């Protein structure tokens, strides 16, 4: 049992990095996703085309490729830590998937909501911001929680640019203790616990929603 506990303690800082990268990526992806979704639904043809190509292209390319490209592009211009580059790259990738989530949610809001908002004198932008988006956000919550799980798992990919997250720590441990099974197995346990918590959360939210509607 002790080697396992020692391993847990050694990996713990990595868990912090994993969670931080995930949260930053989700936040950034959420902003990009919401904006692109609005562009896709309400934008003029140019903006719409931009949003569509972003979402289609990014979703067709492996996340690890996105991470490499953005990492090298960013480091060509500014001096950013692998941690930040990795989080931004993950956010950029997640943004494409969140675009689809938000688009679906916006389209599920009845047309009448927009009409009514315009009817009381709101501008289109204000109606989107104050009436449509808050409702769409609630509809999107289950899919967003699912996206949290996906980004959490994808966050292991920033390993490739040397971010000291769970997998990187596990790799150090594996190399120094010569016990790869223990090291990667323990990392796996961390992920399982996190995803189980998230799926429990998802169940709870879905149940509450089931009552509401």
């Amino acid at each position, binding site marked *: 049992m002790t080697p396992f506990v020692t391993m847990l303690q050694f990996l713990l800082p990595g868990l912090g990095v994993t969670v931080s990268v995930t949260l930053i990526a989700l936040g950034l992806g959420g902003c990009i996703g919401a904006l692109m979704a609005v562009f896709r639904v309400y934008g003029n043809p140019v903006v719409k085309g931009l949003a569509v190509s972003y979402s289609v*292209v990014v979703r*067709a*390319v*492996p*996340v*690890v*490729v*996105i991470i*490499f*490209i953005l990492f*090298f*592009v960013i480091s*060509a211009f500014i001096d950013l830590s692998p941690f930040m580059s990795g989080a931004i790259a993950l956010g950029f990738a997640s943004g494409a998937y969140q675009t689809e989530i938000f688009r679906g949610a916006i389209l599920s809001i009845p047309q009448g909501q927009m009409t009514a908002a315009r009817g009381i004198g709101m501008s289109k932008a204000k109606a989107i911001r104050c009436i449509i988006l808050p409702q769409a956000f609630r509809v999107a919550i289950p899919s967003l929680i699912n996206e949290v799980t996906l980004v959490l*798992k*994808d*966050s*292991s*990919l920033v*390993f*490739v640019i040397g971010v000291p997250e769970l*997998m990187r720590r*596990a*790799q150090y441990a*594996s190399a120094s203790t010569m*016990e*790869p*099974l223990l*090291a*990667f*197995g323990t*990392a*796996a346990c961390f*992920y*399982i616990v996190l*995803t*189980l918590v998230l*799926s429990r959360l998802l169940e709870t939210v879905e149940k509450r929603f089931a009552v509401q509607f």
Partner: protein
Amino acid sequence: MTEFFAYAAMALPDLLQGTVVTLKLTAGALVIGLVIGLPLSLLRVYGRKLVQPVCTAYLTVFRGTPLLVQLFVVYYGLPEIGVSFSRMAAAFITLGCNSGAYQCEYFRGAIQAVSKGQMTAARGIGMSRFQGIRHIVLPQALRLVIPAWSNELIAMVKYTAIVFLIAVPDLMNKAKILSSQNFAPIQTYVLVALIYLVLVGFLSLVLHGIQRKLAVPGLDAGMEGR
């Protein structure tokens, strides 16, 4: 821009070689995943209570951890207890087992989407449970699963991209070598992204065509594109 095209022309043969490996991995993983996922889904839906915890454990492990962790456990971890695989075998096994867990859930959803009355009617004309599953429920479930299965195929093309981390000579591996040889990471990975884009776009078109072809007349109106 011309510089980029010159580089692309130089790099493309190697990258395409890697792409073939990527496609082989995708195909292999999907087949292994099918062999695992379909029986597993039948166990989930029709199996005794006793086997459920085993199914759940399998699904939790493979859906609850990153593919990268699974790959490292299989390739680096298992030799510690005397189970060693070649790089290629480790890649096939990990991707296959992972896909099996996802395919299980897709098949389960499809089986449960076939209405209960179908089984009742099958039993009503004297079919056994097994015959009912085989001749009535599964043929319908397999059609229903096609959209989800298509997504899994596309996803798998992208998921294979991490096996270069155990030095399997796939597209990413070739890219890594080329980029360090030529000090051209951005050009290389943009090129790689383009190859994935073409691959995924082409496969989406083919799968969409198949979906339309296999639709049952009158049913799946949406898929027929009426």
